[in-house]
């Protein structure tokens, strides 16, 4: 009897009640914090998306995958697949990790102080919406060249979108890439 009562209370009445209430009080958050442009959803401010074009700031490497359309028992890499969150789960000593970073660096030369740590590593969810301010700064030259924009304006834009650590203490400073790129598209 207790089992039935708990199931009805905790499994049905409360979740549904909260869902209804949430939809009324905090509809944006309850629906996934969608970001609209011209009335169309272009993403969620909490969920990262893949940026491959040189004229956008790029998100971190992502280890998410999707079922292989040719053979459903296998998977193929699909970065920022928000229907299947996952991490690389590579050990610090994994050859696959070292090879991945080598491939990403390619023939480039390291910036002063080295590549930003988060630029070369994949996140725990594979959906990290943020990059560190250092990572963003290291992408300024590429984006500026692709957009034929003064790099100083881009640096100002990054500063504007920089979210500091909580109370200056907890967590990391970061820049939300989707919001940064939306602002970039709005720039004249």
């Amino acid at each position, binding site marked *: 009897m207790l089992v039935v009562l708990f199931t009805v209370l905790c499994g049905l009445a409360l979740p549904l009640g909260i869902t209804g209430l949430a939809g009324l009080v905090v509809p944006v958050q309850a629906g996934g914090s969608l970001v609209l442009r011209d009335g169309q959803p272009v993403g969620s401010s909490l969920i990262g998306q893949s940026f491959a074009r040189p004229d956008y700031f790029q998100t971190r490497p992502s280890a998410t995958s999707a079922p292989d359309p040719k053979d459903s028992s296998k998977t193929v890499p699909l970065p920022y697949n928000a*229907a299947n969150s996952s991490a690389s789960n*590579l050990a610090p000593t994994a050859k696959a990790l070292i090879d991945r*970073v080598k491939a990403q660096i390619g023939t480039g030369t390291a910036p002063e102080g080295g590549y930003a740590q988060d630029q*070369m*590593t994949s*996140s*725990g969810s594979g959906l990290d919406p943020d990059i560190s301010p250092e990572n963003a700064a290291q992408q300024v030259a590429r984006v500026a060249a692709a957009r034929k924009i003064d790099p100083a304006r881009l640096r100002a834009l990054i500063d504007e979108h920089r979210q500091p650590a909580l109370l200056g203490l907890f967590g990391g400073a970061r820049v939300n890439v989707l919001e940064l790129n939306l602002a970039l598209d709005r720039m004249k």
Partner: protein
Amino acid sequence: MTALGVAQIVLLLAVVVGCAIPLGAFIAAVLSGRRTFLSPVLGPVERGLFRLSGIDPAHGMGWRTYTVALLVITAVHTLLLYAILRLQFYLPFNPQGFTGMSPRLAFNTAISFATNTNWQAYSGETTLSNGAQMLGLTVHNFVSAAVGISAAAAVSRAFSPASKGVLGNAWADITRIVLYVLLPISLLMTAALLALGAPQTLLGSVTVTTLEGVKQVISIGPVAFQEAIKILGTNGGGFFNANSAHPFENPGILSDLIENWALLLIPFSMPVMFGLLAGRARDGMALLATMALLLTGFALLLYAAEAGGNPLLHALGVSNLGGNMEGKEVRFGTALSSLFAASTTATSTGAVIAAHDSLMPLGGLVTLFLIQLGEVIPGGVGSGLYGIVVFALLAVFVAGLMVGRTPEYLGKKIQAKEVKLAMLAVLILPLSILGGTALSLNTASGLGSLANAGPHGLSEMLYAWTSATGNNGSAFAGLSADTPLLDYGLAIAMILGRFAFLVPVMAIAGSLSLKQSLRPGAGTFPTDGALFVGLLAGVILILGGLQYLPALSLGPLAEHFAMLAHATY
């Protein structure tokens, strides 16, 4: 390691302990049937539930009846969850049209939630409907947590001079814990998480078109409420595969602080409740101090390992600033990620905000070791308390051997029967962890599950058996866990870790509750001071930890030294 990072860890732990003390007193009052500030609201609901299910809270149970009650409610819920997982296709709220889980995976998942392990052999967003998440997993998160706290309350009462063989009423305890403790706090947490961005909807997914014109399908669902109880009840089974690293489960820094606080809150309140129910408040505080000191030390150790960064990547020209970020989220950084990793393994929660498989070798070692210590600093809700009481009995036994007197704890004589039962409970864990790891690494199926080669592969398998036996549920998640060997094997390990530990402990409680309470004499070893805290910490580290040293040397330690020599696998 920066001063700022250390400050984040120490401050949050201090706040947790500060809140846990009044909460422990509140839980003790609720379980004693006393009036609290919530009684005017919840009292009628409580009496209604009692009447509907025919519970008489005044009817006390002996240890056998109490234990059987805990086993029965667990068994019924396990069967119900198994049915829900298999039949989710026929249940409402299945917008993605997921079919039923395979029998093997459903068996593993049902056991896993019933034992408060919440091992994720399943992947939430690709196999489970919203209906199964709410009706199955969310309900279990409440009940398995309440079962743990009830057991802890029963053990606490055994030490009270007034107990005389009666340990309380299991049904009343479970109901009161859900009603007065788990529901109110998880509702407050749900509200906070909702405001901070965790979704709560009956949709299965939304589709957007990204700035580069690609369709992105975003899984979504009734996340916020489940996340709250998953953390609060030290359950840890995520709505999403990536668990609390997923931005919908843990959207920002503040939500992370709340979740980390909540997963430690009830475990740290348990020793306070123990002291009050046993009538020895100061002894409860000594247990609390032991837990807090050990956890702070291990959390800082883990942070030190992560903050240094990966030397192999540094050699390629990657900055070490910020530490090892593989498998971590930018918003959390290494300090909060390390604190969460230590908290989740020390409490048997098993939720993660970073990929434990990608922790530095020594960081991974700390997470493994924290589970192997027996989940007692502070351990899962309830289970941590009865675990540390076992260690306390062994500590006074060791002290008794040194001075040649019959040991007592809280006025109860500890004799051969109790020590034998305590050792039985403590020895089940290494048998299952080391035996299971050795067994599965000697099969082709076990080796085929490994994602990483070299010593890290051994760590992956060791972590799986450690996590299942310790009822933790976190993983070195590269491991392919949905195989016949691991689905069945780990399910058995979870049952052993939960009930082969719980039943001897309840037997100890039954035996102690029948004994006379002695007045402390000149030869009584005081169990409420700094000396006892030191002794207990030593017993936990040596007795709980030493037996795993060979396995840890072959896994994480070997990997650490290989890494320093720039070896890769």
